[in-house]
């Protein structure tokens, strides 16, 4: 029982962080048709923004998290305005934008390194202490991460399914031309999606760094995992990405416990390959066959 709770908490914590990153990545892919290689850096910059707000300006933790969201959203907006929107109509957009955002990621990472240095600062935005859950000591920070992620993902789901704004995003994702014919300003939708995904990435960055440390390269690993999750879920399916993130988080925690920590990611990848052989369109993917 103790072990099950421990795996559940660890897995849900991992899943929560992956979900915030993957849902944003998936939204961008679904709407703009681009794989955002700079998404990891959106997380990194969010994490450093929270660090700067809490440590250097002494602001309350909640404000620091809001600063992370604002920084992530600003990165998303800037990426769209200075780069992506000029490439959208170009031929081979899908491949060109991968190279372009990968370049942006390198640039931003060097910028973070220049500004903050490479020292692995601890993330000040965290709460200490443990609570007892059926005799198991569970870190408050883990519970906070799970709760915040659930609330944010619930908010995104509500936004997409129940609001006019969300309808416009879904319509644009499904069929851009038809959305335009309904009067949707698709260029604004792209900008809003980039801002939303950036804000989610910013929070994900704070969470990830709160369990390890800050570093300019901290976004690389979560980006890879978020990408894997998006592929497993079916590229562009935001709902599926959220569910898959929690499933893979739990799986990774279970493998780490029963097989060994260093086997967590490799075993997960083998499973992903098996899933993709069985269902090339991903677990939740439907019609579109995406070539990679």
């Amino acid at each position, binding site marked *: 029982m103790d072990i099950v709770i421990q795996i559940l908490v660890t897995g849900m914590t991992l899943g929560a962080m992956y979900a915030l990153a993957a849902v944003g990545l998936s939204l961008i892919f679904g709407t703009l048709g681009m794989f955002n290689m700079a998404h990891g850096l959106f997380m990194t910059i969010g994490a450093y923004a929270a660090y700067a707000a809490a440590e250097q300006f002494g602001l309350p933790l909640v404000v620091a998290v809001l600063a992370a969201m604002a920084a992530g959203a600003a990165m998303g907006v800037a990426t769209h305005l200075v780069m992506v929107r000029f490439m959208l109509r170009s031929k081979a957009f899908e491949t060109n934008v991968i190279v372009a955002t990968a370049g942006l990621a390198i640039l931003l990472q060097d910028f973070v390194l220049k500004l903050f240095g490479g020292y692995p600062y601890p993330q000040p935005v965290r709460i200490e202490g443990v609570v007892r859950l059926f005799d198991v000591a569970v870190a408050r920070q883990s519970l906070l991460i799970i709760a915040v992620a659930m609330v944010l993902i619930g908010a995104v789901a509500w936004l997409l399914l129940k609001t006019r704004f969300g309808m*416009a995003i*879904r319509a644009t994702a499904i069929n851009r031309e038809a*959305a*335009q*014919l*309904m*009067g949707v*300003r*698709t260029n604004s939708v792209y900008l809003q999606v980039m801002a939303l995904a950036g804000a989610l990435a910013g929070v994900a960055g704070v969470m990830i760094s709160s369990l390890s440390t800050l570093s300019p390269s901290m976004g690389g690993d979560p980006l890879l995992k978020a990408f894997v999750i998006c592929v497993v879920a079916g590229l562009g399916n935001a709902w599926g990405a959220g569910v898959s993130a929690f499933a893979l988080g739990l799986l990774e925690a279970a493998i780490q416990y029963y097989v060994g920590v260093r086997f967590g990611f490799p075993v997960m990848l083998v499973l992903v390959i098996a899933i993709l052989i069985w269902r090339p369109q991903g677990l939740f993917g439907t*019609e579109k066959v995406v070539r990679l």
Partner: protein
Amino acid sequence: MMAALSISDLVAGYHNRPVLHGVSLDTEPGTMAALIGPNGHGKTTLLKTVSGLVPARSGAIRIFGQAIETAEVHERVEAGLVHVPQGDQLFGEMSVEENLHMGAYLRDGAEVPRALEEVYAFFPRLAERRGQSASSLSGGERRMVGIGRGLMAGGKVMMIDEPSLGLAPLIIEQIYEGLRGLSRADRAFLVVEENPSRLIGIADRICLMDAGRIEWSGTAAEVAGSRDILETYLGGH
């Protein structure tokens, strides 16, 4: 009298292939005009150019006097233009009702329930299917959603690319008569139709499009009675 939709000397095409070579066309408010002609001669491209999906190279497009040829697609919708595209282009993963709601995207929310009721009265089948996803519908039902979604906009000029495609003859008749019934002094229809005999007593004017130009225009009865036109352009429909 001011034309509902006025197109003059419109030139447009894709990349290096011009498709429209100077199209001029006026439709009067309260009427239905129809475009007929062989496939691949610019009917769909004309509609797409009017709605802004294909950029115009030169020429003018006006809706009730308002010039829209350089406007963004959504600005043309704001001006009152509705384009029901070829192949429906529904939002497949959305429900029928969500698709209809998208049609009224720019409308005041208070007007939507009544518009929805009107569309369901027009296509009772859609009321039965309202919760179903659009991708699960039959071809005829999809067409109804496409037209219904267009009606939801409450526009002033409504262009429908082949309203009859994939529908049973009885329903085609019903749709055309229904559209006629929606005719008002501040609204006009422009439809693309393969079979001119369906338009007798429905369309006020028929425009024959060939090789990117309007070659001829007249009444439906004139077209149906003209062996020359039928044989030359329409393969003896």
